[in-house]
């Protein structure tokens, strides 16, 4: 995993941050204030999550009059999904290797007679 992917994964790994992300996807574009209405944590907490999400490139902000509005960056989100899938695939490869090694070790240890009878 590259550093930016690690950053991405950490950014979306936190459950309440995913919740903020989810809300943003549903609402299109929203301010920290309006997002805070829909989550059981404070606006300050929402703002902190938005900072992390922005740092990972998952959301972008723009100023409209006196409000700051946030929007999801779809490409980065897909990249995060892929990074996660890669992590899982990596473990699948390791488990496959363990399976091959253990089964080979077991076959070798088996008495020849048993092996020939099967």
């Amino acid at each position, binding site marked *: 995993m590259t550093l930016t992917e690690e950053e991405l994964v950490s950014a979306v*790994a936190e*459950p309440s941050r995913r919740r903020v992300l989810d809300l943003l996807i549903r609402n299109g574009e929203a301010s920290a204030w309006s997002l805070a209405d829909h989550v059981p944590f404070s606006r300050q907490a929402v703002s902190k999550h938005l900072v992390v999400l922005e740092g990972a490139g998952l959301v972008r902000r723009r100023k409209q009059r006196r409000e700051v509005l946030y929007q999801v960056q779809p490409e980065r989100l897909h990249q995060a999904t892929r990074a*996660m899938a890669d*992590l899982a695939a990596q473990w699948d490869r390791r*488990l496959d*290797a363990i399976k091959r*090694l253990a089964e080979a070790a077991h076959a070798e240890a088996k008495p020849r007679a048993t092996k020939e009878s099967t």
Partner: protein
Amino acid sequence: MAELVIEREILIEAPVEVVWRTITEPDQMALWFADRVELTVEPGARGFMYFGDQGGPVVVVSVEAPTRFSFRWNHPLEEDPVVGNSMFVEFTLSAEGDERTRLRVTERDHELRDWPDTEKQRYAEDHRGGWSTHLARLATLLEGQS
């Protein structure tokens, strides 16, 4: 816990003791995990895993032969591994008959920030389907939107 958890499993046609040796002996680990593994497999032991000319520290958490083996890894060299700076990997082995083993691995603690347990609990309820399901849903929502 509601953090990101990767969970995979595989069925192996070998007795649980054989699988145990494969996942815990450093020489064997070097065949499926890192290029080279320096590690004493006992709780609290600190080791190092080499990937090419790079690598990282690993600290053994628990060793319960032949059913459970866990460690933390990926933390900064000069730090102790804790939640927030490292990932926790746990293998559980269960015998299914004399010659078959179910091997499960979970990797967790990808998150950086710590949250109160009550909040984590609540989100665990919300995300029972698991992390990948959730992200898949996000992606679907996004596609529906564009």
